[in-house]
């Protein structure tokens, strides 16, 4: 946001940028020549979970990729975590390290084990050094999880951050050292979400986090999402599912690259 627009639009726009984790106004994103987003407006507050629905090709994945700073904004305006999406170049995009992105396809390395994948994500995020301190919270900051974590720690010594994140997502311990390519699709989803969770993002962007999961798995994922929001993170979930935590949430429907209803 330029200085001039701050002056002309007054204090409100500053407040707007600060309060929302995500704020898009008439956002247009081109994939090649195709307008995947054709003028999307949405705002998401910190600590809020927004569910995005829409048919195939409605622009859901592109919406998430835009919020993650992975595709360029072609026209319109947008801020994520207070940063202008129109700023180009990787130097201007260091806020992306505060975003957790679970893609439609998991970005896992098939030939590394589940634990190695999480450890790699953790090491890239630079949080590995903090892992010793983070033992009390494990990979996740959650209320219900802390007790279990503590029990585990006293029983077997301190589990690594990666192991506890995988445990939180209820991946059986015998699979931690299995290559990801040998896991089922649902188990891979859990590993991918563990990779997101160890980074403690302030904004979670989840593309079909429940895909190929059974009922228990969905519930577990829902809990993790709720915990993240309770800890103050904003969450955008693209889903077809009707999870229990999603019943009373704000739901936005994408069609033709824009939202059907005006969002506050």
């Amino acid at each position, binding site marked *: 946001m330029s200085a001039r627009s701050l002056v002309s639009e007054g204090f409100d726009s500053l407040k707007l940028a600060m309060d929302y984790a995500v704020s898009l106004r008439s956002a247009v994103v081109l994939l090649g020549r195709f307008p995947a987003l054709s003028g999307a407006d949405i705002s998401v507050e910190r600590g809020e979970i927004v569910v995005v629905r829409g048919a195939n090709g409605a622009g859901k994945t592109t919406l998430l990729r835009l919020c993650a*700073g992975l595709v*360029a904004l072609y026209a319109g305006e947008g801020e994520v975590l207070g940063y202008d999406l129109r700023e180009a170049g990787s130097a201007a995009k260091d806020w992306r390290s505060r975003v957790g*992105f679970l*893609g439609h396809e998991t*970005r896992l*390395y098939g030939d590394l084990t589940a634990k190695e994948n999480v450890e790699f*994500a953790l090491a*890239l995020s630079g949080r590995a050094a903090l892992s010793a301190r983070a033992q009390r919270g494990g990979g996740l900051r959650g209320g219900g999880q802390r007790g279990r974590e503590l029990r585990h720690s006293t029983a077997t010594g301190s589990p690594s951050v990666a192991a506890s994140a995988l445990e939180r997502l209820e991946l059986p311990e015998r699979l931690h050292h299995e290559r990801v390519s040998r896991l089922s699709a649902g188990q891979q989803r859990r590993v991918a979400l563990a990779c997101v969770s160890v980074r403690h993002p302030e904004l979670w962007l989840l593309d079909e986090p429940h895909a190929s999961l059974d009922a228990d798995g969905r519930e577990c994922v829902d809990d993790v999402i709720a915990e993240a929001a309770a800890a103050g993170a904003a969450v955008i979930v693209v889903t077809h599912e009707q999870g229990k935590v999603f019943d009373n949430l704000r739901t936005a429907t994408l069609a033709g690259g824009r939202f059907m209803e005006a969002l506050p």
Partner: protein
Amino acid sequence: MIAPLRAVALIAGKDLRIELRSRVVFNHVLPFAVLVLILFGFALDADSDALSSFAPGLFWVAVLLAALLAIGRSFALERADGALDSFRLANISPVAVFAGKALAVFVQLLVLEVVLGIGIVVFYGASLEKPGLLVVAGVLAAAGIASAGTLYGVVASQLAVRETILPLLLLPVLAPVLIGATRAFGDAFGTVAVNGWSWLGLLGAFALVYTTFGALVFGPLLEEG
């Protein structure tokens, strides 16, 4: 944000660990390169004089062809969801990503060169005269190929036609490496009467230019607009 050197080690280590597990370069690319050596034997009518005198050039053509596959593989690892997204999201310095990817390719190229080097001794009857020159030329050429290959590999990896456009973009650029390394090896194997050491400057300069330039432009190359 983590220290760039640590990021380089992480990325290169990850690529090499995946290679150790999957053995794609070892099981596919390396036999392919040896196969190329054998095909040259058939093509040159098993003329042992010709084979031993052309051994250095044939060696480097086999290395270049194998390098194309190794570079393609290096970026296929990261392809799952767009170009190297996880590094962008983790705010890793693009210079470190470039160095990490190039370093892993470099190590794999060295292994390829060792095996192919044994191959030309066995199949072509090349006899080594200057091992020191051979080692230095092999390392410098591998560094140049890995840097230029990583630079062009990321450009190609963003396109649907990545497999077919990479050789077209990369091979003309690698011509000086082929010339220089072939001359240096020619001297090392005693097949041509040139001073092979004088070619190392060219190989070194090439590696330096492409490492510097690759590191400079890798940031913009990773971004979308």
